[in-house]
């Protein structure tokens, strides 16, 4: 039996206010664990900020700044640049933002920062809707999903944020999720060792908003990967694609069936979802030249 005797220090603390089983909280924990103590973290209005805690308590062992909703990226950039001019070069800055703060209201400032290749790690905690304020649709909400502001099912398709970030030719972009914790932490480690704008897209299930049981977050992300709805891959310099895991290619029903926000889907809609997943995988295989390799 392989014992685990050395564990990295946990940066996230207990006692935070996340819902029981929150996939985002698990993601934060894993990201922070890999990030380590010597770092500065930026949070913005989102579930992340709620988890980080109300005054006078903090849920993180690192210095944190609660910036405004749409400015996670320039905030991190400003802090990183300030440290540089003050001669501090070994403390990474990591910004957490939700999908709203990344795909919607924060997209402009993220684009600008990425364009300038500012030096920070940006982690989008994507629970596919505005969950902090209830459950409202965002441009990260997948097609057909129920939310409070798309109660008949979302008519839009999920924005392809990875392709958007790749179009900026940033040094590193990667998808990750808690279902593959070693892959996630390796990607944070890898990002730490680089400079410039590094982007991680973390699928972060919300049992409340996705309408699943509290213990379902890890399995939901695992199934998202195995059905090609959320493949694990990296893009380096906006050009080199590497798939990190060859999925089992399970039918999308396996993923949809886990969540109440999809339960109203009929067979035609499921076909659409399946076609999208198939196309996503085929496209990825083409771009990666069929190479599958774990995080290097």
């Amino acid at each position: 039996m392989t014992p685990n005797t050395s564990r990295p220090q946990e940066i996230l603390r207990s006692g935070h206010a996340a819902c029981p089983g929150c996939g985002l909280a698990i993601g934060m924990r894993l990201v922070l664990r890999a990030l380590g103590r010597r770092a500065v973290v930026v949070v913005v209005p989102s579930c992340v900020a709620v988890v980080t805690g109300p005054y006078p308590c903090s849920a993180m062992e690192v210095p944190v700044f609660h910036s405004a909703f749409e400015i996670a990226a320039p905030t991190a950039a400003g802090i990183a640049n300030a440290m540089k001019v003050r001669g501090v070069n070994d403390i990474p800055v990591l910004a957490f933002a939700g999908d709203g703060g990344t795909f919607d209201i924060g997209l402009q400032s993220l684009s600008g920062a990425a364009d300038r290749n500012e030096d920070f790690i940006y982690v989008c905690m994507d629970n596919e809707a505005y969950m902090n304020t209830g459950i409202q649709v965002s441009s990260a909400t997948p097609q057909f999903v129920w939310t409070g502001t798309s109660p008949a099912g979302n008519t839009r398709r999920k924005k392809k944020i990875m392709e958007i970030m790749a179009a900026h030719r940033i040094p590193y972009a990667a998808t990750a999720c808690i279902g593959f914790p070693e892959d996630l932490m390796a990607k944070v480690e890898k990002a730490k060792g680089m400079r410039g704008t590094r982007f991680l897209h973390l699928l972060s299930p919300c049992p409340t908003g996705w309408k699943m049981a509290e213990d379902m977050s890890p399995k939901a992300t695992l199934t998202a990967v195995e059905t090609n709805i959320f493949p694990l891959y990296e893009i380096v310099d906006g050009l080199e694609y590497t798939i990190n895991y060859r999925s089992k290619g399970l039918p999308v029903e396996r993923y949809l069936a886990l969540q109440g926000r999809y339960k109203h889907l009929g067979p035609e809609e499921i076909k659409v979802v399946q076609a999208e997943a198939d196309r996503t995988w085929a496209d990825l295989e083409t771009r990666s030249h069929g190479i599958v390799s774990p995080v290097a």
Partner: protein
Amino acid sequence: MSQPRCIDPEKIIPISRSTTGVFKTGTWGGHFPEYREKLSTCRGACPAGEDIPSYIALARDGDLEGAFYKIAQENPLPSVCGRVCYHPCEQDCLRRDVDEAVPIHRVERFVGDYGLDNLSFPEPIKSAGAAVAVVGSGPAGLSCAYHARRLGCDVTIFEERELLGGMMRLGIPAYRLPRAIVDRSVAMILATGIKTRSGFRLGDAGTWEELDRFDAVFLALGAQGALTPPFPGIELSGVIGGLEFLKQVNMGQRSEVKGSVVVMGGGNTAIDAARVALRLGAETTILYRRSRQEMPASAEEISDALREGAALLERALPVGVESANGDLKITCARTEAGNADESGRLSYAPLEGSEFTLTAGTLIVAVGQSVEVICGGGRPAIGPQPMTVEPFLRIAGQNYFAGGDMAPIPRRLCDAIASGKLAALSMSAMIGGLDMETIWSRVNVGRGGAFSMEEYLSGKESPSPRLKEAVTAAQIKPEWLAGSPRPEPSRLSAREAARGFDEVVGDPSPEELAASCGQCVTCGSCIGCDRCYLFCPEIAVIPPEEPGGAYSGNREYCKGCGVCAAVCPRGVITMGEGT
């Protein structure tokens, strides 16, 4: 110089410096994780109660020595079992519900062979001051001798033949179980300080008296008498019993068979006889009264026989034999299914008017064995029925115990080995005046007849939970398991196989071993994978202080979400109502 508070950097913006740890979120949840190891279903199915998940995990981690000694806690014959056990463990392997069962027997074979090549059994640690006799050196006898020796007894094996091994040598052909494996396995057991007496046939003058001087005697004579169906012509030369045929070939007394061969029967003896006949160059046909699916022989053996060229006639049986020009004219009939008999199997009776004839040089009849009758003279009467024994294999009122094929247990290798182990414990308890019922409740594995000698020797007061409540399929989380095809063992081609007696199935390669071990979920046992700890959003799982210890939930912060249980692929953590 103190500044006015309105420009004091420490006072003008809020900076949280306390920890959220002051919020005891443990009050939120209604559930709480229970860490409880459970019995793996494979172990629950193994008559010998081998700690399968442990030895596979040790092998997986490269500790072949540890794996070997882990098996040897329960079974001194892993190289044999890895080749010829019918592996009930694999039938109950929960991985079967996910994709395919773990090829446990291949791991056992690899580890067993490693042990034969590199290791020896440890010397017994204490002396019980008792002397026991084991009569019969087949798997049951050898197992009993080995375990009795471990329990500190002075052990003597009495064997009728020159060489030890019983059915392993006499009955199982070399292409399934190489002779060298039998020789070395026996030698390894004897090297623990076991005495032997060959040429001892119980019932001969003075043999019972010789056994009287022992504190306890284990009888493992096997079931060497052949059952003979009552059809006419059974006594003709050219008609031979299956086990007799195999013995002759295995002992080198027979190297040919006359003409084509018809084998009557559907058990492993019949299949072995058929495959041996093929190797002796005979065209071979197997006749079985029931359907192929109902044949008691293992499916793999049946497939092998057919691949090697045997023909199979289902629902047919001989009803009479005549001599015809030096050959046998065998009258056969088709059968039809009737009602179930007392064993639960459908009875098949010959169909009127369905007769047909087969011509063969040899008819091998392998329809079952009986216990050979041996005169008792006040000792326990032996044969032709299996011995009547008490729950822990003692013959009532005597210091005689019985096991293996002569006892009323399934006639399979692993059951024989298990009975030998039980008898050793039972004898030791009798000699030491200990109560087997009390011992049994502690060491019994699951709900069956298996027990753990390792548990017994550990001397622990309360039984390990890993022996008791079985893990269920619902508790295994197949979604976390990487799909991997069950590695196929290398085999000789059918043509090569049927040419001689070389072992048909090849040794596992290190790659095959790794792949096989890698498929094991280690269900029910905690391997310290840390997943429960890693996935908890509240960091409320407390890992053990020492490796191998238990994980627990932190009641101060656990919100009862159940993620820890959901990510434990092994079913060790389950959620209970929290208080």
